[in-house]
């Protein structure tokens, strides 16, 4: 029996790339299709004003989605972000109305966000209570606190033009909230892509025990992402307050679901470990663009929700088919 030894041909880098980034490619394709479609259907859609508008509108969600990507990557979740936004938003209005200079108020608010996040992170990470329960309690508590602060009314922010500029101004033609969101996104991207901290987040989500065993400060890492989510929520609250010129306990209802939707649509897995910051940005913007496009197309409001849902489902489905094998169900997906 003669035996011949041959080596395998080297793998194709392109195919490896496509299969590795299938999910981002998928949402990117979908995003571009949306842009092209709405661009073709309406005149204004692709105008600079409108696009900047979309980014400005999406800014608070984007900011929180960046932090939420980190939270979800650790296999956690933060359901309280919407309530945190409402609480800080109301508190900011009250603080500024009470005469506290707005730069001071901003610092205070970010501190409050960090504190809220820290408490939640402590329960999740050091006390081992499921993130879903901790932040669901948070969802209830902070919304209630916001109600209590405002008694259900909205509080106008007056005489703080510098503050309002944060929500309404432009810098070099770009809306300030959009700029802030872009900065946050870039920071989030770099952290997750190329820093030890980002690596720790992924490791904790992929295999918490393994992360702990190699000596990573796993508990600290897990709690820290909730702090980031708190700070991001506070920042989003400030952007909203500045944009609306008021603080209200009713701000940001259902916000958490929008944020999580953007993250998950972008390919970050709720099971942890699998993450994509670019995907998050694309997912979030896609939802914003669909909302904007449907308004521009004058779709009857009775159909908007149906159409939005169907577009998302069908598009994701077609993309999944396109980049086959993109998503797998189950945890034991390794064959």
């Amino acid at each position: 029996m003669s035996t011949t030894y041959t080596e395998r041909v080297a793998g194709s880098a392109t195919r490896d790339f496509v299969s590795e980034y299938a999910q981002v490619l998928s949402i990117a394709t979908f995003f571009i299709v949306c842009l092209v479609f709405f661009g073709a259907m309406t005149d204004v859609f692709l105008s600079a004003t409108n696009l900047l508008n979309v980014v400005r509108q999406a800014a608070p969600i984007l900011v929180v989605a960046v932090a939420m990507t980190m939270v979800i990557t650790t296999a956690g979740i933060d359901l309280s972000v919407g309530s945190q936004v409402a609480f800080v938003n109301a508190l900011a209005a009250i603080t500024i109305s009470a005469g506290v200079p707005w730069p001071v108020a901003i610092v205070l608010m970010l501190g409050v966000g960090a504190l809220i996040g820290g408490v939640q992170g402590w329960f999740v990470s050091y006390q081992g209570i499921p993130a879903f329960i901790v932040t669901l309690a948070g969802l209830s508590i902070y919304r209630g606190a916001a109600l209590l602060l405002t008694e259900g009314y909205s509080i106008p922010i007056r005489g703080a033009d510098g503050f309002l500029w944060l929500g309404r101004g432009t810098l070099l033609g770009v809306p300030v909230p959009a700029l802030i969101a872009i900065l946050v996104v870039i920071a989030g991207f770099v952290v997750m892509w190329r820093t030890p901290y980002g690596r720790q987040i992924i490791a904790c989500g992929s295999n918490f025990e393994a992360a702990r065993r190699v000596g990573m400060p796993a508990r600290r890492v897990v709690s820290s992402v909730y702090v980031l989510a708190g700070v991001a929520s506070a920042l989003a609250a400030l952007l909203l307050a500045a944009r609306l010129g008021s603080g209200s306990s009713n701000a940001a209802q259902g916000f958490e679901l929008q944020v999580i939707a953007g993250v998950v649509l972008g390919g970050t897995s709720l099971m942890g470990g699998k993450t994509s910051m670019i995907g998050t940005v694309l997912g979030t913007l896609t939802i914003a663009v669909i909302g904007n496009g449907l308004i521009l197309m004058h779709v009857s409001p009775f159909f908007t929700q149906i159409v939005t849902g169907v577009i998302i489902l069908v598009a994701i489905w077609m993309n999944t088919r396109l980049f086959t094998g993109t998503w797998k169900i189950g945890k034991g997906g390794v064959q």
Partner: protein
Amino acid sequence: QDEPRTFALVQINQQALFFNEMNRGAQEAADELGVELVIFNANNEAFQQNSAIETYITQGVDGIAVVAIDVNGIMPAVEQADAAGIPVVAIDAILPEGPQAAQIGVDNAQAGADLAAYIGENMESDELSVGVVGALNSYIQNVRRDGFVENRPEGVSVVNTVDGQNIQDVALNASENLLTANPGMNAIYGTGEPALMGAIAAVTSQGRQDDISIYGWDLTEQVIQGIDEGYVEAVVQQDPAEMGAEAIRALNTLADGDEVEGEISVPVTIVTQDNVDDFRSLFE
């Protein structure tokens, strides 16, 4: 102008008849005037209203009517529209001072007070313990609650307030618990359609029609039935269709370059057994 004018109506939600009636009225007025109407449903999210207005500004609509969720928060968008030369009118929720051309609708605080006064005049016993089913997440309904509570006549006490969250089934549970918690309570005030519907379902399903009288806002078929059966005593009924229509007419006048009244009042009616027949046609 070859293209017809386009007006936008920025709505709160579409889950209550109130808003849909308003949309219908606006649409009918638009059809009459030969203008186009686009409606946006914010699904209760304040900042979505601002986003929608910004989008309409970009698109260059000829006028915007808004039913604000957050009366202060909507102002930047109103100011932006004004700066872009687009007239804005406000419906129902009263906006703070600003560039809006008109305020259409009801004074919710006043109407709440009116209902309280009506109760004062028509009280059968000299004591009425009222439980309030509110919606803490609705600005307008908070105004109605406070308008009522602050102006309640002598002998009327508020024993408990619960939050129905503007959702019928939540309001139903809250109302049932309210009934259990306050055995001596003999009236319920529901500040909006879901709250009132929940209260009615609670009272009927527990068979408490005889000892509880219901007051509240917004007619529906069930409410009319309740009035007929006597346990729903009095309900504030607005004329949302007329509000919508007035808003579109006002916007059209403004687009013509003419002025409109700063306050266009669409009065409310307190519906009781005496005048309920006038409203039956709404639900046929």
